[in-house]
């Protein structure tokens, strides 16, 4: 019983990581970007295009998935990202926080933003220059791994 309770607490602890909004996330964590447009990935070799990571208003919305099982990653995406938009997820791009922090001049970082979900985060620190932004997005796409939902 105690063991079960401990396991439950551990799982919940993983789901509701104690990170205040704006807190930087540990570099060992994995985050995912849900993709709604088929043009943002290449079916030929299952890789991601830069458009998937381009920021909106200086931020790229991602979810922290280190503590989640594959099924839960898709469930969160469906429930908290796709459904409110009336869209269906076509794929997702997983990338480590370390890879995000390492691209180009190490400008980007991942910060917690929990207003919509405890595991929601944003990639911030995008430069104002549009070609530099594009360069970073190209690198993020290059470093990420593409996954498809099991339909």
């Amino acid at each position: 019983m105690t063991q079960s309770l401990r396991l439950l607490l551990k799982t919940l602890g993983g789901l509701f990581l104690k990170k205040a909004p704006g807190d930087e996330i540990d570099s060992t964590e994995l985050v995912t970007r849900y993709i709604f447009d088929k043009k943002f990935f290449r079916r030929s070799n299952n890789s991601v295009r830069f458009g998937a990571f381009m920021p909106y208003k200086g931020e790229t919305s991602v979810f922290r998935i280190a503590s989640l099982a594959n099924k839960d990653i898709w469930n969160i995406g469906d429930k908290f990202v796709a459904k409110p938009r009336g869209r269906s997820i076509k794929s997702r791009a997983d990338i480590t926080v370390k890879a995000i922090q390492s691209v180009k001049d190490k400008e980007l970082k991942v910060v917690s933003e929990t207003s919509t979900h405890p595991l929601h985060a944003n990639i911030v620190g995008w430069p104002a220059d549009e070609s530099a932004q594009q360069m970073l997005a190209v690198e993020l796409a290059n470093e990420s791994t593409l996954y498809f939902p099991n339909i």
Partner: protein
Amino acid sequence: MTTAIFGHHNGGGFFDRIYNTGASQCSRYLQEIINDAVDHFEKPLTLQPKERALKTLGEICTTCSNIGWDGYGALPISKEAHEEAARFLKCLPLDLPIPEIVPDPRGGVSFEWYKSKNWVFTVSTKGENLLIYAGLMGENNRIYGTHTFYDSIPKIVTENIRRLVP
């Protein structure tokens, strides 16, 4: 009649005709047929992929004409961006491969030449007479910048595309 149209007296071939001196309805009709044949002949086969690309561009611009088309608040592709992207495709030298056309969440159109991981070159247009380019030319070898664009594609762009061509 044929002689009058082709004027082969100057030693030239089919395309060296000078003008049609015939005045009859039949002669004018023949001139039209020849014009069509010459147009068809002069149209290189390599233009066909460009025409397909222009069609794809039109479809993408229609699909991405509403705000948030990417699910995250992307700007709609403007008419100016569409026209500029079409101009870019038309200006693309025939020896370069036709790129993949991708909508850009900034309200523009992107072109992508992809070879393999770490080898990709992208160019974006937003209808502002600018080309925004960024690419990976091997591991840790980045190239990016912005260049004005009117009626010819800057050398820095064509050179980088050529680096990805086998």
